[in-house]
């Protein structure tokens, strides 16, 4: 790619520079954190099904491990670039830091398109990746996880190759394993519950009882589903949820002023979070246009679908009643909309805090794997509550103290914790 084109790593660095400026970091710390600590780029020769050998490019970037072993996914992408991987690994560092789990940030991948590869060839790539990198990853060094176009199967192949090489069982090497094969219970619920734990804390700050609030959800995937479930258990009153309709190739908002029900909706939702329109109608839901969720007169908005949903345009439709926006999705709010929220004094729970339940649960998986002792679901979710609650209060305290917008406060905390660790270790 040409140097003048869009570069995600350059963007991540810019974002960091802003925080560094605010935190008044010294130049050494800035220089250290602007770049990954270590980068591995290597070749993976694979004997293809037709007998020919093909060489694949593999990556692993460890941005920072001052706070603990690196953590981050492995992507299979045909046009992966090292800059993308660098940007994502830096993002992982901040994400682990903001929820205060003892992990650093990493990311990796292989340039390949699984659509052009058989299962057997993919397995060879996974094993080849580990053969090249087994000295540099490990339960206490760098812990990979599934990401774009990789899944639990790929993780098991990698784990198996690693264990074969080191000669012992080592389930903590990797996360995203199936339950029963070293995976953790509660992963399905983790992100959604995490979102709602932070909402609960925000309401506490405002001295509002959940049972006196209403909420609208965008999207009805895992995150939204379990956020809704917990919200209802807290006594909250959800009135609508929007979701994509695969058949009509558009999205709809399903509204019931008397309150939508998690159990009811779960009985008519498909695996992709698509609600059956006809059945919803039969159950008495109003069917409104996809964008209607944002216009509702509610206290809480949970955008938990895709990025760029709250824009300069749509933010104008948001009711004045809205007091909390909890970002279940990654990047649902554009900077222009952020500005509006800040001006209006809307309480923003930024994505990398709100949806940190996922990475926290991965951390729990790793912990359980290392002990080879696995908790019941309630124990996982209970520990998640503690982590999320304390992460939230750290961020909200800082926001309050320094009069920061929550998103900025979260970022400050994340960066400062890492910077502190580097300093404590005497690196800078």
């Amino acid at each position, binding site marked *: *790619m*040409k140097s*003048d*084109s*869009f*570069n*995600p790593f350059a*963007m991540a660095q810019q974002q960091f520079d802003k925080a560094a400026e605010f935190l008044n970091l010294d130049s050494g710390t800035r220089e250290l954190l602007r770049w990954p600590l270590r980068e591995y780029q290597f070749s993976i020769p694979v004997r293809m*099904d037709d007998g020919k050998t093909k060489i694949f490019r593999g990556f692993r970037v460890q941005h920072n491990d001052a706070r603990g072993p690196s953590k981050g996914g492995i*992507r299979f*992408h*045909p*046009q*992966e*670039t090292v800059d*993308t991987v660098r940007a994502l690994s830096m993002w992982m560092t901040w994400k682990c830091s903001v929820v205060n789990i003892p992990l650093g940030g990493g990311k990796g991948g292989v340039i390949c*398109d*699984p*659509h*052009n*590869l*058989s*299962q*057997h*060839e993919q397995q060879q790539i996974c094993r080849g990746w580990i053969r090249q990198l087994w000295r540099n990853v490990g339960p206490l060094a760098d812990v990979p996880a*599934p990401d*774009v*176009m990789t*899944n*639990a*199967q790929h993780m098991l192949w990698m784990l198996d190759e690693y264990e074969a090489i080191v000669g012992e069982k080592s389930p903590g090497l990797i996360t*995203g394993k*199936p339950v029963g094969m070293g*995976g953790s219970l509660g992963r*399905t619920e983790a992100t959604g519950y995490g979102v709602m734990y932070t909402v609960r804390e925000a309401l506490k700050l405002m001295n509002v009882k959940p049972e006196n609030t209403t909420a609208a959800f965008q999207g009805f995937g895992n995150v939204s589903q379990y956020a809704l479930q917990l919200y209802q258990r807290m006594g909250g009153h959800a009135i609508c949820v929007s979701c994509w309709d*695969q*058949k009509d*190739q*558009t999205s709809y908002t399903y509204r019931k002023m008397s309150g939508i029900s998690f159990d009811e909706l779960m009985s008519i939702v498909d*695996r*992709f979070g698509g609600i059956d329109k006809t059945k919803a109608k039969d159950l008495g839901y109003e069917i409104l246009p996809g964008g209607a969720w944002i216009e509702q007169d509610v206290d809480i908005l949970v955008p938990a679908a895709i990025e*760029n949903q709250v824009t300069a345009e749509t933010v104008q439709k948001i009711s004045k009643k809205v007091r909390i926006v909890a970002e279940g999705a990654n990047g649902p709010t*554009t900077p222009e909309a952020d500005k509006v929220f800040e001006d209006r004094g809307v309480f923003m729970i930024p994505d990398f805090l709100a949806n940190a339940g996922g990475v926290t649960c991965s951390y729990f998986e790793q912990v359980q794997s290392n002990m080879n002792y696995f908790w019941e679901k309630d124990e996982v979710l209970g520990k998640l509550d503690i982590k999320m609650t304390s992460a939230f209060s750290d961020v909200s305290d800082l926001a309050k103290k320094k009069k920061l917008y929550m998103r900025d406060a979260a970022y400050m905390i994340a960066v400062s914790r890492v910077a502190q660790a580097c300093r404590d270790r005497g690196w800078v």
Partner: protein
Amino acid sequence: MSDHTPPTDKLLWFLRERAKELNCLYRIEEWLNKSDATLEQVCMAIIEAIPAGWQHPECCQARIVLEDATYTTSGLRESPWGMSAPLKVFDQILGTLSVYYTQQMPIEDDGPFLKEERKLLTTIAERLASHIAFQKMRSVYNQYNTAEKELVEHARPEWRVVLDLLRRTDRNLFLTISSKMLNYLCWSGVEEAKVLTQYYDPEQSSDAASLLSDSNVPHRKRVALQGNDFISDETFKIASDNLTPAEILSFIQRWIQQDKLSFLIKTLANINTPLSELNEAIRRFHRMAPEGIDIPINTKRGLLVSLIRRIFSEDLQYINIAKNYTDVYDIFELLQNVIYLPGSHGKLGGKAAGIFLAGQILKKSVESDPLLAHIKTPKAWYISSDVVLHFMSYNNFDEVIEQKYKDVEQIRLEYPNVVQTFKNAVFPTEILKALSVVLDDFSDHPLIVRSSSLLEDRAAASFSGKYKSLFLANQGTKEERLEALLDAIAEVYASIFGPDPIEYRAERGLLDFHEEMGIIIQQVIGTKAGKYFLPTFAGVAFSHNELRWSPRIHRDDGLIRIVPGLGTRAVDRTSDDYPILISPGQPGLRVNVTVDEMVRYSPKMIDVINLETNTFETHHIDELLHEFGDEIPLIDQIVSIDKGDHIQRPLGHIDFNSERLVVTFEGLLTKTDFIAQVRSILKTLEEKLGTPVDLEFAHDGTDFYLLQCRPQSHSDDSAPASIPKDVSPERIIFTANRYVTNGRVPDITHLVYVDPQKYGAIKDRQQLLSVGRCISRLNQILPKRQFILMGPGRWGSRGDIKLGVSVTYSDINNIAMLIEIARQSGHYVPDLSFGTHFFQDLVEAKIRYLPLYPDDGANILNETFLQQSRNILLEVLPEFEQLVGVVRLIDVPQSASGQVVHVLMNSDLDQAIAILAAPRSVVQGQWEEPLLTGSSGEHYWRWRFNIAEQIAAMLNPVRFGVKGFYVFGSTKNATAGPGSDIDLLIHFAGTPEQRRELESWLDGWSLCLSEINYERTGMKSERMLDIHIVTDQDIANQDSYALKISAVTDAARPLPMGRIAK
């Protein structure tokens, strides 16, 4: 024996008597076994031996009376003290054996004789009788042997006897055989024979050279001298000198045999022979020449070719292939399942011909490829094609035959009546009887009634899906089942007169072809699962893969579309469901690889036959599996378990109640030889038939069944476009030479071009995302299926969006074609996505995909046109001003003086070209073959345009307060199809009252026109007119449709108003 004899003495006496008897028997036995003893000697010996065996030998005498001869001991006197036993040979009493005492002896058990003596006599008589029988048989045998020997040694050879008999009884055959023998001798190089041929025509030399010379004078025919036996005699004299009698005899026998077959050849050669006689002739042949008998190869071929031509097809290519893979017996067997009327001359139709030949080829190829061993074809009965004509004349439907020449509107209007008429018709009794037999044969197994039209085997005309195929559950009483079968056949017959097939035929100049339709009544493959009947899976397979989703897949790797249950969902494209796609040459490369993709694009519905309601039904797979999953064989090879974070192949028992299942066919594809089998079938059939093929198949969990086979070129989607050679460079938009599929994308009015360099140079992520939003907006605005999307790299990129525009399927679902441009950047050419992100959506919606490699020497990408044509994006979507440099929207007719873009793709040549030319309706015939899909266009839009003009002319602008009347969209652009509406734009400036009046006036038109259009095309719409009313205010604001009035692209066209109104 006297009572007073003491017991010990009695015992001794008893034993002595038995010993005498035994000695007597031994002596006789000795004589009987002497092979050289004559009967006389034997009889004499017996008579002499007998007395010693009796209690009083001194006064004992014996006598044998045998036919005319009497054998006695010397001086025999008949006395009252005797006993006899008959000599019974072959159930006939030939004489007696008697014993006498010459004087009275004391009374014992049987007169003077002991009971043991009676038994002895009977035994001797039996032994003698069987000896006589043996002797008699031996003498007959010897006589026969001697006679035979004499015949060979002394009489004429057998062949001469036969020949003489022929000479007396069948003179024609005699002469034929003589001349055949002479010919044979000549070919064998016997000189005398060659000389003898001169007698046929002394002027003609036997010199082969003269025959081979290119003299223009026709050779004179040799005239056999009828009645002159001289040549015959000479011929056989020469033959007996050169051949053994056995050889001559065998030749004569073979030629007689051949002559007997001539009746069959004559029957076949006569095209007027009805099927019934044909069947009878083969039956006779069958009896006369059971398999294994020596029939000359040429006779066999001749027979076979005539049969194939008569029953299946007159297509030479078909015959040429079929004759190599069939024999008379195969056809005989098939004919036993053909229903025809006495005097029938019909054929079985294209579908029957296709499946029969494919089945034969596979059967005969098993030896070279064991994978083909268990391929079956379903049991079927056939109705010959002319039965439909008889059926119609029987019911006096004569006027229906002329139906095809009526207006298509009228045909459509009358079609429902035709169907009802057919269904209420009566079948000829012969057919009823035959169908009753068919039902007995099938019992209550579900059936499918398929059309097998004579047009179906004609190249380039694909009638797939044009005629009906109907499923029958075939349950209930015999009467009910018969009723349902008749109903189905009548409905299939009626489909000949359906508007769609007739229109289709009219477009291809096949209207005058005398359409007869055969019927195949085929067993539906499958098993029972609860109340349902279904195959475990079914699908279609193609030799050529025209939908490659990876550059690693080659065209020859083939394609399988496979679904659980009945194959209907794999044959047709369904808008809301997806079959599993597999390329048998590259089974490891899947369209869908992530867990989400695998689940989203898996089949969700299943077609089955409900045996309780007797209906064809579609169900959710989940629900069906939940209820009856355990009863479906091989189901564990079909489904996998969706574990959320990965997909797992089931191991052992599947819990259909609690597991989340997804159809993947993973087990079938990886753990069975199904793929190898299909590949083998495709390869074999493609090779033997000399053309890529298109198959339908089904699997009942045990066996693979081939249901249909036809050339792939007959499929709608796969027809290659001819690539014009002499196009001037400025008319070419692009060319492509890699991963090209077959087909054409005509009448493109708009190009959306995302400049790869400019897109790559965008720094801001928001701006990259806005390109996707811009495309999405254009997708809503531009005319559906009339614009092409061209852009860099990977459309639908999810991660790194700078590699390709981030869109989802809903953002592009109205496009006609998706193009990915791989521009070389530095030293590498980026990988393209091949549309993988929404590949199956594109396939099912028939949106075409093409990758371009403009930096690959030979290819053209007309950047002058793409860069320098006016970009109207700003005028159409002003809010995307910042993208003007990146996204170029080109109105093709505007930029190319009325021309549009046509994309022509030919996978055989691996070439595609997009050219500027007049709209299809105008250029048809210049470079395009008759269209394969849709309509010939012109009359649809012309009719609409005329209507629009008419409405404008009738509209009174003063009465309704109308300032302007415009037409736009497909009617204006000459691209309207049968289902298009008429887009009208009305500039209104009247009162609300006038507006209501105007709307109701137009609504009347709209309703009326939609009815007329339905009659013309069969396309139903509620309103034909799509009316958009704009006001001065709208125009001032440049609101939505008001833009059209003076639009930069695709502007609405004003029509003069009120010409007729007053």
